[in-house]
């Protein structure tokens, strides 16, 4: 329920935010400053006529959005929203989350194939190839945290990050390997949810809507909902693994309730997603795959090695220096090695008056 209303808030935030990034107002007709836009959107999608193509496979066409939303909702069961506020404390919680995420791929294929449309099948194939490729760096960058915390249970991972030295927290993002893991996890999460700059499967200027071209009305709203819920769930997992879950950032702020910290961090990550969407151009398919297999996979493997080095070196400034060097040096070498040699001109900007 909470996450569904968060979805409504995010749609309006995204459209207004993107509008401001692109130097225009977002929607501002419905309600004061356009804030009631989600209500108008919801009414529209509920009352639109449900068109199913004649040669489509009716059962599969109906089941695809249902399975997508179910799989997206299933992932929330292991996220600890506050102190003692997790739905199920599974011993293999992180693995359960990734298993729920891999069901989404089957539902995307069902959506693309059952529409009996060349473009939707093509979009579905692209989406599945992208999701499978980015699942590997996603899971590998989560393994670093599992190694450090010593458990697959999300509650244990958050509890391991709950201490404070002085006023600074023990979150994993404040270590070299944790920071690299966080960045890699967020890039892979953006690709997993098919969001910009990885939204080639649903590229609006290319194959209209990709695998959900033939969906209208409520089923389209379900797809939209499923995609956003997947985005929130992966952000929630990133917060649990790297940003300390429900822990406060400074030790003198622990009197604020834990679930408020979780939602503040979630809103920050969602704002970062919207920011990335408005800023970066879309990646081409071969650039996307090259990024996953040639850049992110070696970086995540080296990250695991660095985390091992961090664990076994004595505390102090030396392990910071060694681990930072172990991450930054391959990053520079890989990005220089993979860059295509092109001369780029100086960009000029023109603003609308």
């Amino acid at each position, binding site marked *: 329920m909470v996450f569904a209303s968060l979805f409504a808030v995010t749609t309006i935030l995204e459209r207004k935010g993107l509008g401001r990034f692109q130097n225009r107002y977002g929607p501002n007709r419905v309600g004061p400053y356009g804030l009631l836009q989600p209500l108008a959107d919801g009414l529209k999608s509920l009352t639109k006529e449900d068109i199913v193509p004649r040669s489509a496979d009716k059962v*599969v066409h109906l089941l695809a959005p249902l399975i997508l939303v179910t799989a997206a909702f299933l992932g929330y069961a292991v996220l600890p929203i506050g102190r003692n506020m997790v739905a199920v404390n*599974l*011993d*293999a919680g992180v*693995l*359960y989350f*990734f*298993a729920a995420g*891999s*069901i989404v*791929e*089957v539902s995307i*294929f*069902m959506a693309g*194939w059952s529409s009996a449309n060349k473009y939707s*099948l093509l979009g579905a*194939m692209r989406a*599945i190839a992208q999701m*499978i490729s980015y*699942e590997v760096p996603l899971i590998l960058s989560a393994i670093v945290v599992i190694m450090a915390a*010593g*458990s*697959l249970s999300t509650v244990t991972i958050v509890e391991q990050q709950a201490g404070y030295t002085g006023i600074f927290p023990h979150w994993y993002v404040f270590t070299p390997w944790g920071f690299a893991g966080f960045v890699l996890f967020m890039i892979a999460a953006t690709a997993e949810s098919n969001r910009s700059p990885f939204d080639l499967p649903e590229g609006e200027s290319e194959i209209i809507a990709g695998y959900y071209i033939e969906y209208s009305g409520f089923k389209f709203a379900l797809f939209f909902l499923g995609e956003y819920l997947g985005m929130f769930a992966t952000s929630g997992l990133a917060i649990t693994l790297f940003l300390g879950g429900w822990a406060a950032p400074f030790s003198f702020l622990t009197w604020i309730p834990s679930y408020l910290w979780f939602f503040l961090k979630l809103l920050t990550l969602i704002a970062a997603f919207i920011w990335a969407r408005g800023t970066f151009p879309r990646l081409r398919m071969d650039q996307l795959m090259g990024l996953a297999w040639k850049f992110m996979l070696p970086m995540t493997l080296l990250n695991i090695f660095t985390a091992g080095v961090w664990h076994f070196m004595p505390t102090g400034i030396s392990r910071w220096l060694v681990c930072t060097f172990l991450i930054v040096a391959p990053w520079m070498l890989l990005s220089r090695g993979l860059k295509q040699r092109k001369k780029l001109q100086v960009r000029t900007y023109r603003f609308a008056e």
Partner: protein
Amino acid sequence: MTVSFLILAALTIAGTAAAMSLRNLIHCVLTLTLGFVGLAMLYLQLGAQFVGFTQILVYVGAVAILAVFAIMMTQSVGPHVQPALSSFWVPGSVVASAVFAVLAWAICSGATSVRTPPQHDVSVNQIGDALMHKFALPLEIMGLLLTAALIGAVILAMPEKKGEQ
């Protein structure tokens, strides 16, 4: 024989039987996915959490998608489909029924005790411990096997180079 076991068993059998008997290949793979999910829930009911989630992650998330891609690329769906059953289907089904009869007889004639051991809660820590200590050699061999399979699959599926002009 609890109700949940019967429901999950019915789901799994329905999924796999449909997978082996439907004409449309994509429907076969989708019902097979249902069968895999039923099997994963049976593992969870037996208390093997890690195996259940790994089953979904590997089989539903990878093997089913692989089968679907292969069906797409060999164009086994379309108007010009072949007949569903092979020309040797009678001996095949006789053999399969005979195998089931022998196995069922062996199981039912060997049923002895009705004592059920208490549920042994296994944590992933113990599985990792066992993998690193007692089962370290199979783990390394599995790594080699997977690498060989990866390289082999890529080489098999690569398009052949045209000969030199």
